[in-house]
């Protein structure tokens, strides 16, 4: 029993997680001819919650046709709860020595969980960074019609050139952030 719990708590290697994530593409097609992707739900959540006096036309559509997507999103939230709360990994992420050295050099504490307390806590600066970062993610994924799942996985696997452009954009943005903005902000 203890070993089973330990197994459920321990992190998975890439060669187990990657193929499971990749299988979402054919399985969603087989179930309902759906395109695997998660960020469209941001749009649907806006369509659901937009207050009546505010009329942004973009969100005035019948989101019920996307119920499947919202249910899938609900599943992700539940899966996150089971994996990150019930069977939370008691150990820190297993980073490479090079990454650990980089974080130490930048003055971050030794990792204890998935995310650094230096950013994932509620100082004024952190709140601003998390919120603004979120705004960029929301705006960008909608402008590009997809995120990592929709473009890097579904898009590339179905040989769509648009998705390749999107992935190049995503990766350039990430590199820019990781090399310039994050160190400049002092994380």
């Amino acid at each position, binding site marked *: 029993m203890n070993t089973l719990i330990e197994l459920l708590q321990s992190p*998975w290697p890439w060669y187990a*997680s*990657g*193929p*499971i*994530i*990749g299988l979402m*593409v054919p399985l*969603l097609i087989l*179930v*309902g*001819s*759906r*395109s*695997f992707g998660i960020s469209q*739900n*941001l749009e649907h*959540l806006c369509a659901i919650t937009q207050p009546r006096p505010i009329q*942004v*036309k973009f969100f005035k559509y019948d989101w019920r046709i*996307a*119920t499947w997507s919202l*249910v*899938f999103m609900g*599943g*992700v*939230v539940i*899966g*996150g709860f089971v994996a*990150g709360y019930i069977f939370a990994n008691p150990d820190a*992420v297993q*980073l490479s020595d090079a*990454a650990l050295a980089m974080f130490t050099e930048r003055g971050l504490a030794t990792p204890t969980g998935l995310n*650094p307390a230096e950013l994932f806590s*509620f100082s004024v600066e952190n709140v601003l960074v998390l919120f603004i970062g*979120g*705004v960029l*993610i*929301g705006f*960008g994924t909608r*402008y*590009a*019609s997809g*995120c*990592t799942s929709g473009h890097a*996985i579904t898009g590339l*696997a*179905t040989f*769509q050139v648009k*998705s390749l452009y*999107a992935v190049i*954009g*995503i*990766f350039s*943005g990430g*590199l*820019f952030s990781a*090399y310039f903005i*994050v160190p400049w*902000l002092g994380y």
Partner: protein
Amino acid sequence: MKRLIPYLILGIIFGFTLVKSEAASWYRIQEMFHFQSFHMFGILFSAIATATVSILLMKRLVGKRSLEGHVISIPKKPEGLLNYPVGGFIFGIGWGLVGLCPGPMFALAGSGSLPSILALTGALHGTWLYGLAKQKIPFIKRSVCTA
């Protein structure tokens, strides 16, 4: 309702995997963008490879019926050109900053991480801002994707 159960199950598996693979870790994302470990690239490459092989095997199913009764087709992204790299770049900056893309964001929100919920709130505001910008600024074009 019953027809929605497969989506719920697939979502649970996806969310569980995102956390267990450590893709929902700011540390892992920084490590990836600094090319200090193969882990995240391994996840992405093996996911793409699995999906590609499955799609190739499924070509013969095109036109047949899915479990729900829809005609099976290979997914297509909406029309557009510049919005793909530009939108991707904007998203990438946020991803590198917060260390969470939308999937992990929802998964971590489920695990009760309040900072992730804050980032998700930001993402919803960003999405709404996009909707507003699309209405006001004519050059922001993208065919409406409601599915």
